[in-house]
């Protein structure tokens, strides 16, 4: 397991986190970072990766300008040596790329890993979350024929920058691909009537609101507070509010000062969209909802009972 590689998708926080994850999973290994892309964005990703890893392989091609699993899968399958272990961040690119890559490499696949607990021979002991984060699972993954492991963002504390690594241009190794899936464009999220990313106070509703007509109760509270209304994913899926109102990794990233979560259980995808440690208040009827672990203040209550009273109380203290 001394052949450890890390795929760094871009110049963001991922290189330092992946470096920490690699050190936790493979103590003593000297991982090689891989970056792929084109032009200045690639150069920035390579610089970022070189701060965290001693060696960086860089793959430059116009076709790689947009991260494309259809092109990256054959590339990684070609350049990774047999039996190698590959780490990459568990995002939408990894969900596209990694399961098929593990099959192609003949390697084991361990997705969305949040912790490492050592190894028994070739078996890595890992921690995952299941049932939407309600429980954790200790998992053993046989890396004897290699492993592809995706790592949850935020699960490993970023490693401090190293002395600076060398970047090797390996663009000559990019294989020719006749893609059966052809990238066309990226369509940005439709701009809503409110930019929740700029709001200081958010009143956010989740599945616990129960019914579309109950959203009016949250709207009234938001209006009384002078706050904007946002929501979690199930509310957008049900088409009760626009996509532009969705907080989370698949929605908007918000930086409010105060965040009031109403009937939101607190999945990591939702909390991943809230930055800057706001003052978090959670109201949920399930006292075991994970949101109460993230919140500063909590109320275990039925929303339909609490909301009208809270709106009145807010009007009084205003």
């Amino acid at each position, binding site marked *: 397991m001394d052949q450890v590689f890390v795929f760094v998708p871009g110049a963001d926080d991922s290189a330092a986190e992946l470096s920490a994850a690699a050190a936790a999973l493979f103590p003593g290994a000297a991982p090689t970072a891989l970056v792929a892309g084109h032009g200045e964005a690639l150069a920035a990703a390579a610089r970022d990766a070189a701060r965290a890893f001693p060696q960086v392989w860089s793959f430059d091609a116009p076709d790689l300008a947009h991260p494309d699993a259809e092109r990256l899968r054959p590339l990684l399958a070609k350049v990774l040596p047999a039996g190698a272990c590959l780490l990459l961040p568990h995002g939408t690119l990894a969900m596209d790329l990694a399961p098929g890559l593990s*099959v192609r490499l003949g390697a084991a696949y361990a997705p969305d890993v949040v912790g490492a607990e050592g190894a028994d021979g070739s078996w890595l002991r890992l921690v995952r979350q299941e049932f939407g984060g309600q429980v954790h699972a200790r998992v053993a993954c046989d890396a004897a024929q290699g492993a592809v492991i995706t790592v949850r963002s935020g699960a490993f504390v970023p490693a401090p920058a190293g002395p600076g690594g060398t970047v090797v241009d390996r663009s000559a190794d990019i294989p020719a691909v006749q893609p059966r899936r052809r990238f066309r464009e990226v369509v940005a999220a439709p701009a809503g009537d409110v930019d929740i990313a700029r709001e200081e106070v958010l009143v956010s509703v989740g599945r616990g609101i129960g019914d579309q007509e109950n959203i009016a109760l949250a709207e009234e509270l938001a209006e009384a507070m002078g706050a904007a209304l946002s929501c979690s994913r199930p509310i957008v899926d049900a088409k009760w509010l626009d996509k532009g109102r969705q907080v989370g990794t698949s929605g908007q990233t918000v930086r409010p000062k105060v965040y009031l979560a109403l009937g939101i259980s607190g999945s990591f995808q939702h909390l991943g969209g809230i930055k800057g440690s706001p003052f978090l208040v959670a109201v949920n009827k399930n006292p075991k909802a994970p949101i109460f672990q993230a919140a500063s203040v909590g109320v275990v209550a039925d929303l339909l009972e*609490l909301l009208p009273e809270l709106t009145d109380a807010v009007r009084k203290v205003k």
Partner: protein
Amino acid sequence: MEILVCVKRVPDPAENEIAVEGGGIRRDDLVYAVNEWDNYAVEEALRIVEREGGSVTVATVGGPEADETLRREMAMGAEKALLLSDPAFADADGLGVARILAAAVRKGAYDLVLTGAMADDGAAQVGGMLAELLDWPFASLVNRVEGAGPLRIGREIEGGAQEVSDIDLPCVLSVQTGINEPRYVGLRGIRKVASAEIPVLDAAALGVEPAAPRVRRLAYFVPETGPGAELLEGGIPEVAARLAGILKAKGGIK
């Protein structure tokens, strides 16, 4: 278009609090349902067939109890179902499940295979593995499907954006929630398919040799958590008044 949709019976997240006992999940009193993502996949398949013609088959890997899952999706409108069931499948990891499904796909003549984007284990792996085993192109987190081949598809990527591509048939797509509104299944629909014949295919019928899993679950546990939120207790009016005071003090009321 001939479409196979892979579905899974899972503990219903809306109805259950998942409890851990002796390193396992306490299963006796769990309420089961069709994996939420899979309902969107079946709905999308039905819409494609309504538009382009063809038929929808639903398939699942599971024990005899998974029959009810298949019937529910047939009540939604799927024409055929396959139960892929063998005691030897019990230990299958994600790759094992993908191998069983790949064998079922090879026995048919499908143009398109849909899966839900993920299920209860959150691994989001079977669709991508299945595509690779079949040597078909793949897209994950699909939230838009148009055309008749090549398909014009949208994938959900970070920040609410959509990545648009064209993908050749046959292909495998894993479907994200929100792509459509799954239709309501009434009692009448359930009754209609109650006596439908569902073929059961075992390891021998599929020609699958179960392989030793390379990813194994050792134990479930509930993580130690921090102190958590300060919970406000008392009657509703009292709690509301205190919460309003706290919100004002923290700058939450303008």
